[in-house]
């Protein structure tokens, strides 16, 4: 069940900072531990930067979840960029087509409980991450 939602734009590096602050607020409200807050914020920062750098910008949807007494936060990053031709390769540590270290996707997957990625070449990429309290 989704109890609260919001959507933020990702169009500049300042937006990435605002997204990090929003994730901090949402995870603190959910009562996440400091380490869990930090993991979710870091994963969000990586994925927002990916959406900006590789997808030419996009948006992130925040959803507060409740499932059989557990509460969590789900973030969905969506861009309308060129898409990822080989998702398997993109999820490998150290693989990058840009200037980064190639840890954005693979690293953020390790920081969350659930990770889903869907990408269509020419249409864009959608990454969904969930962390439960």
């Amino acid at each position, binding site marked *: 069940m989704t109890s609260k939602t919001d959507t933020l734009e990702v169009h500049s590096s300042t937006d990435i900072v605002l997204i990090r602050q929003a994730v901090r607020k949402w995870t603190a409200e959910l009562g996440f531990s400091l380490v869990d807050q930090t993991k979710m914020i870091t994963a969000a920062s990586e994925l927002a930067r990916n959406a900006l750098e590789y997808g030419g910008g996009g948006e992130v949807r925040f959803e507060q979840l409740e499932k059989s007494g557990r509460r969590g936060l789900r973030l969905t990053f969506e861009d309308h960029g060129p898409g990822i031709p080989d998702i398997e390769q993109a999820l490998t*540590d150290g693989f990058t087509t840009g200037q980064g270290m190639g840890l954005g996707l693979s690293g953020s997957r390790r*920081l969350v409980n659930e990770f889903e990625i869907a990408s269509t070449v020419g249409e864009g990429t959608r990454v969904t991450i969930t962390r439960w309290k």
Partner: protein
Amino acid sequence: MERIPILRMGPFLLVTIQVDLHDRLVVTFQDDLTEQISRTGARGVLIDISALDMVDSFMGRMIANIAGMSRILDAETVVVGMRPAVAITLVELGLALPGVRTALDVEKGMELLRASRGLRLGKEEDGDLED
């Protein structure tokens, strides 16, 4: 324009990062710091990140780059004050910051810089930086 201040402390430069780093600020900071090292002949750089509540791969790469640039300019870099939650997250992210020296706080970082530069407190200190 927003900038990260770089302070002099004897033969070293001290940087305390207190703002939420966005990408452009990081690039300006790298330019400022390398320029200062080269101009002052600083022997070491201490970067205090105790105010940062998160470090992602972009910032991690920036820190590693600064350490590398400083080394080439003959200055050691020590990163101090990383919060435990940040350290846990960085390692899970896959970024263990190889090649970056760290210390728990500014005081221990200073000791490390002095020791690695063969400098001692007091009279024997290398003295002030050149202008």
